[in-house]
């Protein structure tokens, strides 16, 4: 399996993505932004479709669209509207636009399926370099803002900064989320973003009591699902996302079940 270049690339990409998703997911779940992460992935779908239409790399379209959406959602956060209603309006528009761009760009069905369900086995060496750059960027931003982001996610009431600084911090968080969603879409596709960004982090909450331990276990669950999923996809010739989804959901259900005792 590892003598094949495409499998080597898939494992490298999967590892990078799992590390980012596990760490960022810990913050996303703590801040109860699960639904927002899914909406960002729908926006990523529209961005990728726009990329095909405009002749850009789909990942570039994803990054631009999700960052713009993150800024818009951050700007609307103080508006007189319920956040989940704003989010559902934005995702409905995004999916509509995605379908439009797919039609206008005469994008092939396989390319569209790749965006929605992931296409990690088709990832190239150049793609990995881009993913690596984005992953490093996300991790550096998290390192620089670790303590304020930790408070924003785990105890916003305890975050004592002036209001303007808090808004900036929220936007930084949304941009980190947008980048992570774009990165993770490369592996599991934009329809299955929960599988890597929220499920491993949600499962980890049943076992760990500190932020760093939550992150470590979340990364471990994400890596376990990704590596096992890639191996099973290679052996069975079925899509990788299926296996990763089943494994992560399985871990989550077992975690709930164990916690009942």
């Amino acid at each position, binding site marked *: 399996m590892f003598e094949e270049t495409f499998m080597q690339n898939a494992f490298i990409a999967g590892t990078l993505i799992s590390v980012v998703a596990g760490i960022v997911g810990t913050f996303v779940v*703590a801040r*109860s932004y699960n639904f927002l992460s899914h909406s960002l992935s729908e926006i990523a779908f529209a961005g990728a479709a726009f990329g095909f239409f405009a002749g850009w790399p789909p990942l570039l379209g994803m990054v631009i669209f999700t960052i713009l959406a993150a800024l818009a959602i951050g700007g609307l956060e103080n508006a007189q509207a319920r956040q989940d209603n704003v989010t559902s309006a934005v995702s409905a528009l995004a999916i509509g636009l995605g379908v439009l761009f797919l039609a206008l760009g005469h994008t092939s069905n396989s390319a569209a399926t790749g965006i929605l369900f992931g296409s990690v086995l088709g990832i190239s060496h150049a793609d990995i370099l881009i993913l690596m750059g984005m992953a490093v960027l996300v991790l550096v931003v998290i*390192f*620089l803002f*670790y*303590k*304020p982001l*930790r*408070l924003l996610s*785990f*105890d916003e*009431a*305890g975050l*004592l*900064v*002036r*209001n*303007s*600084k808090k808004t900036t911090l929220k936007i930084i968080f949304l941009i980190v989320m947008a980048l992570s969603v774009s990165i993770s879409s490369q592996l599991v596709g934009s329809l299955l973003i929960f599988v890597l960004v929220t499920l491993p982090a949600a499962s*980890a*909450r*049943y076992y*760990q*009591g*500190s*932020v*760093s331990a*939550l992150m470590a276990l979340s990364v471990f669950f994400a890596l376990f699902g990704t590596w096992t999923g890639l191996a099973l996809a290679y052996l069975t010739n079925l899509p990788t996302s299926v296996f990763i989804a089943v494994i992560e959901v399985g871990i989550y259900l077992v975690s709930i079940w164990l916690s009942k005792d």
Partner: protein
Amino acid sequence: MAQQVEVSHFTAAFSDRVILNDVSFSIPAHQFTVIVGENGAGKTTLIKALIQTVLGAKTTGRGQSHHEQIRVNSQNLAYVPQFRDLGDDYPLSIASFVALGLKKGLRPWLTKTEKEAIQTALAQVDLADLAKQRLADASGGQKQRAYIAQALVQNPDLLILDEPTAALDANHALALVKRVRDLQQSRQIGVLWISHDTSWVKDFADDYLWLHDGQVDFGLAKDLPDHASSHHHQEVNHV
């Protein structure tokens, strides 16, 4: 004695309704001051203005008066807010929750000094034995003490608490008052405590700040007027 808080000509209003009208007062350093007043009298608005001043925000209140000035002498302010929506599945242990209060520097892990500071803060609120327990599994009183420990670990020179005893029964509330009073005296810090319950004020506080009818009265706790607490029972029923 130097003043810890100096407010002059402060006005606060929500749309058309003026809740604090051109108020001025000052609070000396290292005092335990209770802020009393009915719901909507402007207690939380006032402390938010004080906090934003310490944090370096440029605007204070509505700025309706050119003479408006707020000065807070605090290098290190800690605030225990009234509401904390952490949920029943909140994963952090009490010690990890307290560690969130350590906000300085980039280093993501804890130094030996920081670990000791967490232990000290936990011991001061009598939670040392429960350090590893999940905060979500703690009782209401233990949660309040954990919130206060998170504030103490920042080593504040001014501690502001917004209704910390609202969810506690009378005995636990009084125990918390005594504990904070002890800490305030041993650490020589200033405490601003918003409270509906004024039954303990004369025994454990130094001063009071009474917000009513758009005005602020400041005085020694032992002189707290009886009618400053007259609405207490009525309001507790609403909570």
